[in-house]
């Protein structure tokens, strides 16, 4: 296929010389929403961090829009349009919502349109525009993390467990916002252990188990798989 935006090929990564992600290959095409599902410690975050440059992979290759990303610094990867939202959010706690959003557009000064676009997706952020990010509720922080990433005008948005720390209701709300973004044509790769949420959103998915891709298919195929149902859907 030629319209693949992200091609991860035989990626290995880990800590202190010991791999926890082994030989992972996956692709994301432009306009697609792809989920990586797996339980605690299966290596989702490790894999995503080595895609976005926060962690140096120990092997394999990552190509974004035809460009090899191995060895490229995280800030360069972000500027090239691959924007990562970590589960820990990494907001700037002593800055206002507005300033956090401004920084998302770095190095340019964002236009009113850009801000307006994010405020349309997350009206709550507009109400809280002057509030310090460190004092926001968990749900609001998640909105801000995604909003800040949107300010960059990403070609690929990578989300690590957007449901982290959210109540079931707030987690569904967060995913509802993602459905809206998906309708606007945003390309998304999302890691999640709340499997029903992720499969509702995504076109396709990969199941990661102990650092390896165990299974892949469309969301409905995965949802119908007995193994997935037993392990993640509590059926």
């Amino acid at each position, binding site marked *: 296929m030629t319209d693949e935006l992200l091609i991860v090929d035989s990626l290995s990564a880990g800590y202190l010389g010991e791999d926890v992600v082994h030989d992972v290959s996956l692709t994301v095409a432009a306009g697609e929403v792809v989920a990586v599902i797996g339980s605690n410690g299966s290596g989702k975050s490790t894999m995503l961090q080595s895609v976005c440059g926060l962690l140096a992979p120990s092997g394999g290759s990552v190509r974004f829009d035809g460009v090899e990303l191995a060895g490229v610094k*995280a800030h360069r990867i972000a500027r090239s349009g691959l924007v990562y939202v970590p589960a820990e959010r*990494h907001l700037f706690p002593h800055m206002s919502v507005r300033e956090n959003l401004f*920084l998302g557009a770095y190095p340019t000064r964002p236009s009113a349109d850009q801000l307006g676009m994010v405020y349309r997706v997350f009206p709550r952020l507009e109400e809280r525009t002057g509030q310090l990010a460190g004092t926001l509720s968990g749900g609001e922080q998640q909105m801000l993390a995604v909003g800040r990433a949107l300010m960059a005008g990403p070609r690929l948005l990578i989300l690590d467990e957007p449901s982290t720390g959210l109540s079931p209701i707030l987690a569904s709300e967060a995913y509802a916002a993602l459905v809206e973004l998906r309708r606007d044509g945003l390309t998304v790769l999302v890691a999640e252990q709340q499997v029903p949420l992720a499969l509702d959103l995504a076109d396709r998915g990969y199941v990661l188990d102990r650092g390896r891709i165990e299974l892949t298919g469309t969301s409905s195929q995965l949802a119908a798989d007995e193994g997935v149902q037993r392990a993640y859907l509590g059926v």
Partner: protein
Amino acid sequence: MTAVALDGIVLGLQFGILGVGLTLVYGLGGIVNLAHGQMAVLAAIVTARLIDSGSPAVVAAFVGVVAVSVLGVVLDLTLMRPVYRQQGEHRVLLGLLLMLGVGFVIDGLLEWRYPIEALSLRFQGDPIPVLGVAMRRGSLVASAISVAAGGVLVMLLRWTTFGRATRSVIQDETGARLCGINPAAVRTVVFGVSGALAGLVAITVAMTRPVVSTDGVNLTTFGLIVAVVGGLGSVPGAFLAGIILGVVNTISAFYIGSYVSTILLLLAAATTLLLRPRGLLGIG
């Protein structure tokens, strides 16, 4: 009393700029610049040499400030490289030791080459009354420069894209990288700014009293106390702490004696930290 307080504010503004230079570099990369005062003195000595050889004072001071600013950039790009590769405590300790070494080297060079050099910048004209106190022109110019430098710095940090990027690296370096900000580049620029601020302190101090080649250690010590009391990494905190400690120092020096005043200064610093472990306006 008013006269002493005003003198305290003059000194406090200088302390503030001294502390800001230290606090920015620490906040960004965990480097405790124990050569900060020595860099300031270096600017003073460069300025004094240039004036000796016939340069106009303004040009000489400008060159002196730029010279230490460049030194800051060079240090960041060379000696600090292996430091930034370390994390946490290791980084702080290695940075501290290397900058201590830089301080020794500068002190040694100055003592060897220019043992009796001093910078004194005098202003012609009568004292000007402020709140009924006759203030020397040097003190007023020094304070105006400090206030202007501080004001410009705060505005740059608050309202420019680069200033915002600088604060973002202090608050969450990973977050900054994910926004496309290169922390290494920010650190290099800010180390240069910090060097310039150190130079500026030496120039303003020279307007109120002679700066001699052995003043480095004292300036480093005062700067460190100010930065810690203000909360390492906090620019407004450093200004606030600088002014408070400048006033404390001047008042106690006037009524008790200058030796005791340094002890009182440390006591004030220790008390602040006991009450507020992260400093007056400490972050994170």
